């Protein structure tokens, strides 16, 4: 039996996550020993059959919907990676506007040639087996998930705050430095990558499923941070989350 055939596909995204994977160096070589890459736009272009589909990017056109459904039907395992694919990512900011307005703004005279639908994460369109959140993906987590997928072992994105990992890394809290950080409401799993490197958390991994919104507002008020400002910051990566909320409500009724 040969290695599992893995194909990388991209939808609406910057392809930065693929670039991360291409930049892996030695780890990439080790991963490649365990898999056969059959489609990978950033490093090659070979089409064919595949067992594992790794999806980057969010679903933003009806053509995307058809394409992702086809991929899902063909793949035994589907991995969504990067913020765009797992939470809608920055593409979700489009959902703040009327679709026609935003289409005209971006494409101007050519707008009529570009149909568009509200941005969705992959799991909001087809079932996803594994998710690697983050913008870009945190490579150690990506490798961990790939190993799980190849071994048929489930992986669950942590549902606690980035603060947990940040504290274990003994970083000086950004709030102690007078900065606003989305760590307290953002899903962990990145080993507080940004804060380790002196940057605040932008919430790229998506919000924890049960965020303490009142508590969070309290904190911001205490630090004299305007709520709208933080809401904008939270919406940067989390706008498409609204589709999850609707599904949850629907689930409760059943």
């Amino acid at each position: 039996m040969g290695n599992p055939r893995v194909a990388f596909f991209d939808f609406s995204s910057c392809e930065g996550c693929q670039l991360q994977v291409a930049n892996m160096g030695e780890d990439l070589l080790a991963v490649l020993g365990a898999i056969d890459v059959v489609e990978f736009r950033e490093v090659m272009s070979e089409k064919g059959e595949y067992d594992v589909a790794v999806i980057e990017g969010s679903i933003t056109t009806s053509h995307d919907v058809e394409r992702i459904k086809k991929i899902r039907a063909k793949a035994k395992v589907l991995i969504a990676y990067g913020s765009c694919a797992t939470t809608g990512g920055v593409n979700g900011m489009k959902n703040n506007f009327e679709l026609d307005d935003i289409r005209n703004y971006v494409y101007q005279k050519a707008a009529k040639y570009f149909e568009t639908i509200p941005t969705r994460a992959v799991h909001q369109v087809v079932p996803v087996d594994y998710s690697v959140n983050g913008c870009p993906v945190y490579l150690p987590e990506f490798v961990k998930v790939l190993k799980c997928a190849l071994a048929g072992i489930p992986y669950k994105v942590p549902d606690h705050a980035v603060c947990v990992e940040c504290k274990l890394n003994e970083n000086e809290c950004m709030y102690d430095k007078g900065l606003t950080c989305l760590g307290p409401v953002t899903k962990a799993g990145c080993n507080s990558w940004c804060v380790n490197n002196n940057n605040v958390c932008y919430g790229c991994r998506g919000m924890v499923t049960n965020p303490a919104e009142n508590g969070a507002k309290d904190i911001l008020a205490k630090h004299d941070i305007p709520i709208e400002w933080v809401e904008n910051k939270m919406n940067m990566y989390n706008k498409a989350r609204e589709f999850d909320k609707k599904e949850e409500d629907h689930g409760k009724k059943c």
Partner: protein
Amino acid sequence: MSANSVLESPYVVKAGKILRAKQLTGLEKYFEIELPGREDLGHEPGQFVMISVPGAGEVPISVSSSPWKKGAFELVIRRAGGVTSALHQLGAGDVVGIRGPYGRGFPTRVLEGKNLLMIGGGCGTIPLRSLITYVLDNRDRFGEVNILVGYKSPEMILFKDEFDAWGQKRDVFTDMTVDRVGPGWQGKVGLITKLISPLQIDPQKTYAVVVGPPIMYKFVIQELLKKKIPEDQIIVSMERHMKCGVGKCGHCQIAQYYCCQDGPVFTFKEIRNFYEAI
């Protein structure tokens, strides 16, 4: 060997070979497991083991077989999370990691000579089966034996053949109900509490053993108290998240109790006053 030999680690795992595996329902799968050298697990009814699939992790699972079964033991595992999903992919010949048995099981010594009312709801019948088979193997040591089980729907019924065989015995009373009917279902329909009220029992001589989902405890215990069964004669088994099984990791704590060591079996009297318990 030093005083702190790593081999003394409480996390040492033995290889357990799966002898037989069988899908019982859409969610539950049966496993018969043998330890190296056919060593007995040495458990008491109501105790649990930590079972691991290397790479996926480790979970606590109640032992379902009687301690009298020699050379192997039985688990019935509901597919609910990552590790149990990985376990469901395994079959005869595969090997899992086993440590234990752990916890305080059903107080079999105390139960001897008493009338028993054993009530199982859903997958609660899995650990209860360990006690039922133990009691039936030693039938003369116990008074009246009543077994009541309830399931959500007919497809969820576990150990149907065994249940029927228990009911065939002269000195055992069994009854079963489902919450929702299914195709071809001829039996009773309704909540398990309905099976309790018609029973004629001597409350002072009766011990009730209840195992089921959290929601079931509230209503069943109310019914038992109405029957005047004393609080320390109502015995329950609690389900909690566990990681270590040896009273360290903190996940299974109910007030001051560690479910993995002080439980999972408690009397209602012990836990009655504990918020978060039921």
